[in-house]
């Protein structure tokens, strides 16, 4: 069974803006099954028993963890991570995201809207060319027609192909795992956009005005999700995570993957999580559940 990731081919502007002709190439084909019942048809009884045991254990753990889970959902549990402003970030931490696609509400765009507002990004009119730091993907299983939605952004790999290919050193990975573009050095060659297997980067084609003071952006540079680095450095959480929590869905968690006591690390240790195209060896910092 295979799962195909598809980019939306239409936008809010309808057919008028020409988005329908966008180069919506499928970005990833992941071998993960979408629903357990369907996937277990052909497996042996031992495997079924193992799955039942895991599911039962997970359900039990959920009950125990429930208060902590609720606390984290509103983005406060890890807020004590602020470092002194004059200290550099360190590799002791690795910031990451855990996204539960099962909680992502169909049609909800709260994370996308919050990202655009926080970073001063105009609502994209032409999906083929306009900047998108986060998008919602409609994932469809072609075999049984089941669909779900998931937010998708820069996967903040620890082996980022964009950094490997950058000819100037503009694309870099910070010690704490956040992959960024230094726009002072970027020459706009877009090699990183070609290299990224997640199609996570955008190029700014036209002059911008009235940028946010904390988020400088400009024509001629490649850019992508910064995991709201300006907020993270002050002890905050990314805008998308905050907005998702406010909707009540709480499908996104932000935290330190290296801290075994953080909510994100506990959940990753407890539940089965997936990373998109993990087979590529990019070691993404964004984990998904229920995809």
């Amino acid at each position: 069974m295979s799962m195909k990731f598809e980019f939306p081919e239409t936008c809010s502007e309808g057919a008028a803006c020409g988005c329908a002709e966008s180069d919506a190439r499928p970005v990833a084909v992941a071998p993960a099954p979408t629903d357990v019942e369907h996937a277990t048809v052909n497996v042996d009884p031992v495997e079924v028993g193992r799955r039942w045991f895991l599911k039962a254990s997970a359900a039990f753990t959920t009950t125990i963890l429930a208060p902590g889970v609720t606390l984290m959902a509103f983005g406060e549990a890890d807020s004590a991570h602020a470092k002194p402003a004059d200290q550099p970030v360190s590799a002791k931490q690795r910031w990451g995201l855990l996204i539960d696609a099962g909680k992502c509400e169909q049609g909800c765009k709260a994370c996308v809207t919050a990202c655009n507002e926080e970073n001063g990004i105009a609502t994209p009119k032409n999906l083929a060319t306009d900047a998108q730091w986060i998008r919602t993907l409609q994932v469809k299983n072609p075999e049984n027609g089941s669909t779900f939605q998931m937010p998708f952004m820069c996967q903040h790999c620890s082996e980022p192909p964009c950094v490997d290919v950058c000819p100037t050193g503009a694309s870099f990975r910070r010690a704490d795992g956040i992959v960024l573009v230094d726009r002072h050095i970027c020459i706009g060659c877009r090699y990183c956009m070609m290299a990224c297997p997640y199609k996570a980067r955008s190029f700014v084609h036209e002059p911008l005005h009235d940028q946010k003071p904390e988020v400088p952006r400009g024509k001629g540079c490649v850019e992508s999700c910064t995991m709201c680095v300006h907020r993270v450095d002050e002890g905050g959480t990314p805008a998308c995570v905050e907005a998702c929590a406010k909707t009540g869905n709480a499908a996104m968690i932000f935290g330190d993957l290296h801290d075994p006591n953080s909510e994100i690390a506990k959940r990753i240790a407890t539940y089965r999580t997936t990373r998109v195209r993990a087979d590529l060896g990019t070691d993404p910092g964004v984990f998904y559940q229920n995809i």
Partner: protein
Amino acid sequence: MAVAFLATVLASVVVVPPVVAEPPQPAKGRGDKCVMPTDWMRRNHMKGLIHHRREAVHEGIRTPTFDLNGCIDCHQVKGDDGKPVKISSPKHFCRTCHDYAGVRLDCFECHASRPEQKTETTTGQLERSPHHHTGLPGHGGEGDVAALNRYLEGAGK
């Protein structure tokens, strides 16, 4: 004839006044003093900004002393509409000197050239971004200056 020639020469020397542009008068910042003495800032502000930019982007060191947003906040110039002017206005703090010196400035193709505009909430209170930089001089300044000096010495000035 000779007298007429002499008069012409003298007139050309004496009568035409030399054209000297007035030196620029950049807007004074808020508070008593800048993060560094004015003479230092005139010569070295760009070094401080470049040093800070490297540290902030790559290492996440976000100290306020040489933060461009701090300069923009403290030295904002109000326009006719009462709002801080953007870099498109000749009155902008940075432009007053850079226009005079003929040094092109491309920081503001990406960076905001004025503080974030306050937005009025439904309750009528003024709300600012929680991450807004206050730009007050002096906070943590000694450490920043020492770091900058080390950097300048290491970089061969």
